[in-house]
C-alpha cells in the first residue's frame, strides 16, 4: 500500500460533511434557550445620535433587551486595546461606543429577542434621531488631501526611487502614460458573518465564529471584555468563504459576546446580506502609470503611483505598486502610494490585496505600450524579464515565469494571434486575445502543531488555523499521513479552535507553507520516537540502522535497502508499551536565509473574449493560466484555488463594483442582485497549468501558496483582450457594456 500523498489529487477530506449538509457554520448551533440579536444600522454616514427610543421595540412580548450606546456595558477604555493581529495602524471602530456615527451602516443598536423573526421586526421599531454632519465619501474630491500612510506590519511601503525616472521618461523614445481607476468591491462570501455565543453557565463562553483566525478573534474578545484566556473558547471548524473579510473580528462578534455576558444567556447575531456591505471592502484606488521605452522595447523609465482611500480612524495600506519595480528590468523607477480619509469603514484585505489592483494597472500599461511599439505583448515582457529583484537588489529564490509564458502561450495558441485590434472574428462576435502577468508573495510565518499517535495507529494532528474553502484540512492530512507513512483514513487534522497550538490567521497564501511546515516538523518528531521504539523491538530488522535508512510507509518502518523487512507502527508501540506518542512543535521560518532572497510566485494569464459589437456584451470564452508556485501539495484543490481566483478576476474585470450614492455616503447596490459576481453562465473554459518549480528557500516543503495568485493579472488579461477585440481601451473597471457601445 502506498502512503505517498503529497502531490496527489486527493478529494477534499471535508467533502462528505459539506455535500451532506452536516458541516456546521457559525450561525448554525441551535443551543437551548438561544436568543437572537438583530443589528440596527445607521442610515447616515457621519454625525451624532440625538436620541434613541427603543420603548416600542421593548414593549413587544419576547423582546429581551435593546442595546444602544446609552446602556451598553463598558468595555476596556483604551482604544488601542481593540487592535487585533491584522489591524491597520490607528484606532479600530467598535460598536455602541458613543453617540458618534462614522460610516453609513454603522451598527447603532442591537435588538435581542427570543426568536429571529421577532428580533428583526423589533429592530424596525427602534427609533433613532440623528444630527447628520457633512460627509466625504468621494475619493476624487480628496486628491489634494493625499498623504503617505503610516506603515502596517507585513506591508512594505514603496522603495525609494532609483535612477532618474522623470528624466528618463521625458527622454524616452516611446512613452505611455495613463490613469487607471479601480472601484470599491465587497468580499461577499456566501455565508454572512455570524456569531453564536454559548453561555456556559459559569461565565465561560464558547463562541462559534466565522473567522480566518480563531486565536486572533479569541484574543480580541479576551482583551476587550477583560476575560481570562481559558474563559473563552472560540471555534470555527467550517467557514463559508471569507476572502480576507474574516481576517479581523467583525462587529457582530463584539455585539454577540456583549449581549451574552449582559443577559447571561446564549446569543446569536447574524448579519444580513445588506449589512455585509457595511464591513471592510477593497479600497477604491486611482493609479497613474508612466512607461518609457527604447524602440526595441527595453524599459527605460517606470513610474507607478497609487492613491487609495482609508477611513477616518485607521491607515489601511496595501502593496499596490512595489510589484512594478521588481517584475521588469528597469533602472529608472519611481513608485508611490498615498491615501486620503473618507467617511467609510476601514478597507479590508480582499483576495490578493494590492496586487489585484496594481497588476491591473501595470499590465494594462504594458499592453498599451506594446501597441505603441508595434511589438507583441508577450515579446515585450520577455524583453524586460527581470532575473533579479531590482527593488531590493536580491535574487529570486526561484522564478519560473519564463516557463509560465512559454507553456501558457503554447496551450493558448498565442502564436496564432493576429496583432491588429478588431482583426479576429467568430461570426458576429469580435474576438480578442490578451495576456498579463501575475505575481504574489511566498510567505512563511511562525506556527505550531501538535500530533497524537495512538496505539491503534490513528494519528490526530492539530493547529489553530482555518479552512475557508482553501483545502487546509486536506493538505495537512496529506502531509501528516505521508510523513508518518500512515493510510490517509487513519489521519485526522483539526483546526478552527482557539485552544489548539498557535497559528496565525489564514491569509496571504501563507497557510500551506506556515502550518504545513509545523505539521511536517511535528510528524518528524513522532517519527523519531517511533524509530527508537521500533529499534528496541525484539529481533528488530532495523535495530542497527540510522533513521535515514528507514522508510515510513503503509503503516510500517521499513529498511531502505530491503523494504521487505520492517516493523509495523502498531507493533513498535505495543512492544514499547506506549499507549500514545505526543509531540508539539513550533516552527519558525529560516529568516536569515530567506531574507537574502525575494520569494514570489508568478503566473502568465491568457484570455479570450467574445464581444457582441451591437450589444457590448463580453463573454470570457477561455482563460489559460500558467502558474509557478513551487510545489503543489494537491493538484485538485490547488487547481480549484487558482480557478476560483480566475473567476474572481472575471468578476473584477466585468462585473464587480460597489456604488456609493455620494449624497448619502452609502452603498446603493448592497445585495447580490445588484452587486454582480460571476455566475455559472459567466464562466467558460478555464485551464490551469502548474509549471514545475523547485524552491528550497521558501520553506522545507517548497510550497509557495495558491490562494491569491489566480486573481492577479486576470482582469488585465481580459481588459487587454477587450482592447484587442474592439480597439477600445477601458481603464476603469468593471468593463460594463455601456463602456463599449
Amino acid at each position: 500500500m502506498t502512503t505517498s500523498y503529497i502531490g496527489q489529487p486527493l478529494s477534499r477530506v471535508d467533502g462528505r460533511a459539506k455535500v451532506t449538509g452536516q458541516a456546521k457554520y457559525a450561525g448554525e448551533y441551535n443551543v437551548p434557550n438561544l436568543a437572537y440579536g438583530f443589528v440596527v444600522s445607521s442610515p447616515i454616514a457621519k454625525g451624532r445620535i440625538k436620541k434613541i427610543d427603543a420603548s416600542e421595540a421593548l414593549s413587544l412580548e419576547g423582546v429581551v433587551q435593546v442595546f444602544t450606546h446609552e446602556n451598553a456595558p463598558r468595555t476596556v477604555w483604551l482604544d488601542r486595546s481593540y487592535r487585533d493581529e491584522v489591524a491597520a495602524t490607528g484606532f479600530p471602530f467598535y460598536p455602541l461606543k458613543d453617540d458618534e456615527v462614522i460610516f453609513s451602516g454603522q451598527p447603532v443598536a442591537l435588538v435581542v429577542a427570543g426568536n429571529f423573526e421577532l428580533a428583526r421586526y423589533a429592530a424596525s421599531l427602534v427609533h433613532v434621531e440623528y444630527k447628520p454632519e457633512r460627509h466625504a465619501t468621494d475619493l476624487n474630491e480628496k486628491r489634494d488631501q493625499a498623504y503617505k500612510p503610516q506603515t502596517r506590519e507585513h506591508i512594505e511601503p514603496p522603495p525609494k526611487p532609483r535612477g532618474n525616472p522623470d528624466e528618463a521618461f521625458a527622454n524616452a523614445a516611446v512613452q505611455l502614460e495613463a490613469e487607471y481607476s479601480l472601484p470599491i468591491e465587497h468580499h461577499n462570501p456566501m455565508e454572512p458573518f455570524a456569531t453564536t455565543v454559548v453561555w456556559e453557565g459559569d461565565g465561560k463562553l464558547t463562541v462559534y465564529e466565522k473567522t480566518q483566525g480563531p486565536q486572533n478573534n479569541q484574543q480580541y474578545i479576551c482583551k476587550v471584555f477583560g476575560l481570562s484566556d481559558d474563559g473563552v473558547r472560540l471555534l470555527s471548524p467550517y467557514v463559508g468563504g471569507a476572502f480576507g473579510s474574516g481576517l479581523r473580528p467583525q462587529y457582530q462578534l463584539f455585539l454577540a459576546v456583549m449581549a451574552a455576558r449582559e443577559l447571561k444567556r446564549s446569543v446569536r447575531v447574524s448579519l444580513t446580506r445588506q449589512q455585509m456591505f457595511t464591513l471592510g471592502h477593497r479600497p477604491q484606488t486611482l493609479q497613474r502609470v508612466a512607461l518609457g521605452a527604447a524602440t526595441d522595447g527595453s524599459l527605460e523609465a517606470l513610474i507607478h503611483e497609487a492613491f487609495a482611500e482609508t477611513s477616518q480612524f485607521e491607515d489601511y495600506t496595501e502593496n499596490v505598486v512595489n510589484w512594478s519595480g521588481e517584475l521588469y528590468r528597469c533602472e529608472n523607477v519611481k513608485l508611490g502610494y498615498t491615501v486620503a480619509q473618507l467617511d467609510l469603514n476601514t478597507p479590508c484585505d480582499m483576495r490578493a490585496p494590492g496586487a489585484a489592483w496594481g497588476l491591473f494597472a501595470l499590465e494594462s500599461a504594458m499592453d498599451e505600450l506594446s501597441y505603441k511599439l508595434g511589438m507583441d505583448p508577450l515579446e515585450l515582457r520577455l524583453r524586460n524579464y527581470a532575473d533579479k529583484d531590482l527593488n531590493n537588489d536580491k535574487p529570486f529564490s526561484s522564478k519560473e515565469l519564463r516557463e509560465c509564458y512559454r507553456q501558457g502561450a503554447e496551450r493558448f495558441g498565442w502564436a496564432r494571434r493576429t496583432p491588429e485590434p478588431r482583426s479576429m472574428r467568430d461570426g458576429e462576435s469580435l474576438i480578442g486575445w490578451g495576456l498579463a502577468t501575475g505575481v504574489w508573495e511566498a510567505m512563511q510565518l511562525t506556527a505550531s502543531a501538535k500530533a497524537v499517535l495512538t496505539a491503534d495507529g490513528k494519528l490526530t494532528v492539530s493547529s489553530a488555523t482555518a479552512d475557508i474553502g482553501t483545502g487546509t484540512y486536506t493538505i495537512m492530512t496529506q502531509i501528516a499521513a505521508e510523513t508518518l507513512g500512515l493510510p490517509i483514513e487513519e489521519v485526522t487534522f483539526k483546526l478552527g479552535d482557539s485552544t489548539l497550538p498557535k497559528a496565525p490567521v489564514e491569509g496571504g497564501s501563507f497557510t500551506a507553507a506556515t502550518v504545513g511546515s509545523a505539521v511536517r516538523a511535528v510528524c518528524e518528531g513522532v517519527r523519531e520516537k517511533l524509530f527508537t521504539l521500533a529499534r528496541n523491538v525484539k529481533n528488530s530488522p532495523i535495530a542497527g540502522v540510522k533513521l535515514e535508512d528507514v522508510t515510513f510507509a503503509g503503516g510500517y518502518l521499513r529498511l531502505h535497502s530491503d523494504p521487505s523487512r520492517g516493523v509495523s507502527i502498531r507493533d513498535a508501540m505495543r512492544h514499547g508499551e506506549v499507549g500514545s506518542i505526543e509531540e508539539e512543535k513550533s516552527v519558525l521560518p529560516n529568516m536569515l536565509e530567506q531574507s537574502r532572497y525575494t520569494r514570489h510566485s508568478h503566473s502568465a494569464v491568457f484570455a479570450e473574449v467574445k464581444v457582441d459589437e451591437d450589444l457590448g456584451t463580453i463573454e470570457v470564452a477561455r482563460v489559460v493560466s500558467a502558474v509557478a508556485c513551487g510545489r503543489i501539495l494537491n493538484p485538485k484543490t490547488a487547481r480549484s484555488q487558482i480557478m476560483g481566483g480566475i473567476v474572481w478576476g472575471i468578476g473584477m474585470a466585468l462585473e464587480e463594483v460597489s456604488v456609493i450614492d455620494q449624497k448619502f455616503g452609502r452603498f446603493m447596490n448592497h445585495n447580490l442582485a445588484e452587486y454582480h459576481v460571476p455566475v455559472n453562465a459567466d464562466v467558460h473554459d478555464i485551464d490551469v497549468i502548474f509549471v514545475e518549480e523547485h524552491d528550497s528557500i521558501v520553506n522545507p516543503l517548497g510550497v509557495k501558496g495558491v490562494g491569491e495568485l489566480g486573481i492577479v493579472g486576470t482582469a488585465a488579461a481580459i481588459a487587454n483582450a477587450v482592447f484587442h477585440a474592439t480597439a477600445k481601451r477601458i481603464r476603469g473597471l468593471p468593463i460594463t457594456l455601456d463602456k463599449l457601445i
Partner: protein
Amino acid sequence: MKTQELERVSASLPSRSLITLTINGAERQLEIAPWTTLLDALREYVGLTGTKKGCDHGQCGACTVLVDGKSINSCLTLAIMKDGADITTIEGLARGNALHPLQQAFIEHDALQCGYCTPGQICSAVALINEGRAKTENDIRELMSGNICRCGAYPNILAAIQQVMQAGERNVKP
C-alpha cells in the same frame, strides 16, 4: 404602514398555525408564525441547518430545496404556504451511508470549496436533471446560474453535473 395600523392588521392574524410538512420522508408538525419563511422554519425550528441562508432575498440560491420535487428558494416561501407538502433538503439525499450520485460527483470533481453554497447547488442540480431540459453545457450553465458560488467552483460544478447526466441516471430521485 404606521406601526399602529400594522398592529391592527397583525392582531387579526393567527400568531401561530399548526402545519404538517413531510421533510426527508418524515412527517413533522410545526406550530409556526405566518411570517416565518420555510428557510427559517427548517434552520431554526426543525434544526436542519444544511439548507443555507446567503441573502434571504432569493438572489443567491443557497437556500434551494425541493418541494414536491420542484426546486424553490426556501427564503422566498412562507412555511405555512407549504402545509402538507413533501420537502427534500440536502440532508435527505443520501441513502444511509450511500451518497446521492450528485453528492459523490461533487466530491470527486472538487465542485465545492467553502461548502456554503453546496447544498443549494446540489438541490438545484437534482431538479435540473429531473426536469430534463438541459441538453448542452451552456444549458446547464444557464440553468445553474441561480446558484452563486463565490469560491468560483463553476467549471467543476458543471463537470459534476455532466458526469451524473452522462451516467444516464435519469430521475436521480430526491
